[in-house]
């Protein structure tokens, strides 16, 4: 456990620049993951109610009318 802590310390914490860089990179990754996950949850919660779910019912007909 102490060796693990030492490794973490010397890798990420010893230099403040590294700690800051890690924090910002982590923020980027976290935001990406958070957005994707919340979008998936939203889409599954509103399955069949969004425009992209019912678009094929209306857009196909229009194209047929054009042709």
């Amino acid at each position, binding site marked *: 456990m102490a060796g693990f*802590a030492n490794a973490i310390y010397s890798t990420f*914490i010893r230099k403040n620049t590294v*700690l800051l860089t890690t924090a910002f990179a*982590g*923020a980027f990754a976290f935001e990406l993951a958070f957005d994707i996950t919340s979008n998936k949850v939203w889409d599954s919660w509103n399955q069949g109610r969004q425009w992209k779910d019912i678009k094929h019912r209306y857009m196909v007909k229009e194209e047929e009318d054009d042709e």
Partner: protein
Amino acid sequence: MTGPVIPIASESSGSNFNFRLHPPSILTSLSPQLAAQFPPWSIALTMSLSSASSTLLRTVARQQLPTSRAAVTSCQQRRGVADAKSSFESPFASANERGSTLKIPNFSKYKSNNSPRSNQVFSYFMAGSLGLATAVGAKATVQDFLVNMSASADVLAQAKVEISLGAIPEGKNVIIKWRGKPVFIRHRTQGEIDEAREAKWEGLRDPQPDEDRVQRPEWLVMLGVCTHLGCVPIGEAGDYGGWFCPCHGSHYDISGRIRRGPAPLNLEVPAYSFPEDETLVIG
């Protein structure tokens, strides 16, 4: 409420302290037991006493003054005796007394069993995680404000104009209205294209090749606003076969470039695209 500062020896607490108190706290000099019962902040409450009662207090205090002076004298004498013995008596209570606040508690129950390094790593991890969360929150806040400021989808959709190009014969101008401004669309003939391409554009006032001004050479799309003072030029006129502004006599060529007259710049080209072969979308 000004008056002499009265030194008071507090006998009840048993210590050798001289409290310097201000007149509102005369209450404590009247009754040391009362002073022991009430904390110092309650003295401030006496400030709100009615003026009649404070006058009374002042009178009483004046009569009591000799007594308190005597107390001070005796106190100073006692201190002199203590100095003669050359032993130090702490003015604070000793830690051995029962209920003393000077005893240092035993914190070993709360001491971490981990190594100091892992405690350090935990602290820095929490600090870094807070920084991460702050960065995400700040970015989301700023982004929401900026998105709020930009045009919404319905406004963007209204700001576009779609034109069917099949109705425009070769060699003809069409003027349409886009965002309140006229837009010239010219279906250029092959001869006009060659003329626009072969012109020496390097020496013009606003040098620009024809290739930079059109996406498809046969379709010239420009804002119909003279760059001089904003008049609408007349098509198929002027010395260069293009547009002529009647207000101050600016001549534009078949690519919309300024050739003669007061205008400083070429006619502006808006953002446009050809989503299909025969359709033009401006905006």
